[in-house]
């Protein structure tokens, strides 16, 4: 189906469907450009330990102790 046939059909769609089509087209274009977009309702685990300052303090104390005893 060409754009000429598609446009009249698109015009008849409700607003929500038009927005979904916009989202779909952006996602398709991003894929073609090699850009990864986040998808709705999908979990993206973040493993980076942000603001983990107590753990950082524990590591620094362990290093200090290891240096004092020259141990691993």
């Amino acid at each position: 189906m060409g754009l000429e046939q598609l446009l009249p059909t698109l015009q008849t769609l409700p607003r929500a469907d038009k927005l979904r089509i916009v989202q779909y087209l952006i996602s398709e274009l991003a894929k073609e450009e090699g850009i990864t977009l986040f998808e709705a309702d999908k979990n993206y685990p973040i493993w980076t330990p942000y603001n983990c300052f107590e753990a950082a303090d524990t590591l620094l104390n362990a290093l200090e102790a290891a240096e004092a005893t020259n141990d691993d």
Partner: protein
Amino acid sequence: MMIDMERFPFSEKDESLGVASSLPYLPLTFTYRNHSLLVSGLLDTGASVNVLPYDMGIQLGADWKRQKIPVRLTGNLAQLEARVLIVSAKVAQFAPVRLALAWTQANNIPLILGQVNFFLEFDVCFFRSQSVFEIRPKQSQ
């Protein structure tokens, strides 16, 4: 004495995504009690600590039961136990340094090189637009 920077390329983790998937992974060698292991660590300036995946610690010859100091991590890593492991790390031609790692029971993560204490030991400059980074040992004041 002036110490030269070493330059490394970013690594593309997904060929089909090219530069969008490029990350600063650093090759380095860990040594723990006469065991050496060539590893690749993600330079993560947002990470408070270094994190070692469980299997990498085993490959390095570490014994989980012998590590007595617990570390409490955050985010997805909070649900798993972690313990302190101290290793020697050698980057490029630089002298080895001691790194403290939070050795986690998780495996589905990269080796994370974070603020404590990787970035306390090395100065790093990122040139993301050129997909390279440069690194050198910390300079004495």
